[in-house]
């Protein structure tokens, strides 16, 4: 790929001068020096905490106690029987599904719109990306007000078309929808740009030959664009899974008042990460139990990501057009 830098310049004889030795030392060892900061930092603040989380989760470990008794799997067995934990798992999965599916479909559609001859191309792209750069905390607060029960704009609009006010914070499912709206608002445009980039890499003549064969626009989209986008879609799904299942800031700040870490008085929209915080930090400071939540969440993310990838592979593999298009591309 690249020319080897440590190959010695042939013009030089091999005098063992000081500068020569220095230069050999430089080419051999300085690469390690340059990459060390990352590995050092990741070891201390990334890998070690993750492993140590497991260690802590095997102990009865709280803020005040000094002797952290080893309790084995007790935190885990307690957690598996903890109704509040499963409640949070259901909330997280529910919010994940009703946010991710429409989000990725909308992003595909939006990318398809942006992939045309447009006036003010950059302007449109900026307009759809702008939610992604705004502060998550600020957005969560604003949406909390838009979805307010009494004076929220969403309920006011619903009222205009004759729908009764919805308790966006007190009804469990409604709160999932509101939080999903927030997540989608932030990420749809971003994913659309990712899809757009992949769409632009598809050779135009594929569409031309399909058009000559009489395939409609819609047919071309589903039989050429979507199958060829599969790697990008899988990438987006994995990223959405990792982010979506760890959802925290949006639901946390959607609720205010007393004990918002519970995600509403009856834990209507408490996610697993919020449940981890509730146990590990204020008010309980039970580090052992919180760490067990973290590890089960980690397992959940791995499982859901694997399932998602399987589903998408399956869906794509069954499209006959997918294979045809790939054959054409070679």
């Amino acid at each position, binding site marked *: 790929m*690249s*020319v080897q*830098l*440590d190959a010695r310049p042939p013009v030089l004889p091999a005098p063992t001068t000081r500068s020569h030795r220095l230069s050999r030392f*430089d*080419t*051999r060892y300085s690469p*390690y020096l*340059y*990459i060390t*900061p*990352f590995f050092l*930092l*990741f070891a201390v*603040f*990334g890998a*070690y*905490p*993750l492993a*140590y989380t497991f260690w*802590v989760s095997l102990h009865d470990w709280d803020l005040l106690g000094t002797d952290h008794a080893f309790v084995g799997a007790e935190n885990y067995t307690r957690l598996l029987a903890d109704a509040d934990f499963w409640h949070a798992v259901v909330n997280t999965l529910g919010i994940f599904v009703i946010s991710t599916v429409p989000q990725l479909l909308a992003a595909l559609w939006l990318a398809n*719109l942006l992939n*045309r*001859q447009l006036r003010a191309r950059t302007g449109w792209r*900026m*307009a*759809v*990306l*702008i*939610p992604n*750069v*705004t*502060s*998550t*905390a*600020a957005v969560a607060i*604003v*949406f909390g*007000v*838009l979805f307010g029960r009494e*004076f929220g*704009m969403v309920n*006011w609009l619903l009222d205009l078309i004759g729908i009764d006010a919805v308790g966006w914070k007190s009804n469990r499912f409604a709160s999932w929808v509101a939080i999903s709206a927030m997540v989608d608002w932030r990420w749809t445009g971003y994913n659309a*740009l*990712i899809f*757009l980039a*992949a769409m632009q890499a598809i050779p*135009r003549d594929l569409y031309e030959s399909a058009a000559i064969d009489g395939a409609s626009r819609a047919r071309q989209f589903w039989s050429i664009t979507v199958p060829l986008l599969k790697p990008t879609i899988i*990438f987006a799904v994995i990223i959405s899974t990792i982010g979506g299942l*760890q959802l*925290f800031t949006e639901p*946390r700040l959607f609720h*205010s008042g007393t004990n918002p870490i519970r995600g509403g008085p009856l834990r209507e929209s408490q996610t697993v990460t919020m449940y*981890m915080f509730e146990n*590990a930090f204020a008010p309980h400071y039970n*580090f052992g139990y*919180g*760490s067990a939540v*973290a590890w089960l969440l*980690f397992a959940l993310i791995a499982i859901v990501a694997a399932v998602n990838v399987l589903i998408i592979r399956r869906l794509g593999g069954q499209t006959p057009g997918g294979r045809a298009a790939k054959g054409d591309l070679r």
Partner: protein
Amino acid sequence: MSRLWRASPLTYAALVLAAFLSIFPIYWMFVVASRSSDAMGQVPPPVTPGGNLGANIARLFGNTDAYFLTGLINSAIVATTVTASVVFFSTLAGFAFAKLRFRGRNALLMVIIATMMVPTQLGVIPLYLLMTKLNWNDRLPAVIVPALVTGFGVFMMRQYAGQAVSTELIEAARMDGCGTWRVYWNVVLPALRPAAAVLGLLTFMTTWNDFLWPYAVLNDPENPTVQLSLRALSDGYYQDMSQVFTGTAIATLPLLLVFVLFGRQIIGGIMEGAVKA
């Protein structure tokens, strides 16, 4: 070269709708920020700016619960330090991975890619215990130091350096007696500038927005980042929404400014990264 489909009026109509949905919440944030505190109870809700912005700003900075000014200053310190550091260490490591030969290079690169998939947020509890030991709780190093270099940054710079830095140029510099450090500083860094700028912008925005980790480790209400100030405002017992929205608007303003000035580059960076990933 064949051409893209032409956009129909329907395309534009759909894009206008998408743009409206994107921009409206941000616009409305500024509307409420410029109105008096009774704007919240009005039916229909106000959609045009009022004349109360100055008074709201004064009340916001005078609010003794939110420490908003401290939050702004802290966030500026954290975001600029982290950005400078991430750009420096990522370009350096990216250069090493793309252009230098060393034992274990490919394996180490795979490790970096793998770290990008690990949800490190799940390590917050031991990280909190670690910060307690270091006596960094409630202090800015706790949010700065763990973020000083990222796998994402190293990988992005490595991808860019592979294609943007000419190997011949590096060779020539080596012939002239440059060590690897001078090659980095005089040849590689200038060539990496466009990508490094995008990385810097993305890092600045992510760091400015970060909520979860500062929320865990900065518990002293008198020493928040700006996002924690927003939380304090929003969780307050008595909610004065025009004041809260003034806070969210000011916290968003630097990001909007960066985006308006460098939006084209940011979009380019996101889309290039997508194709390579």
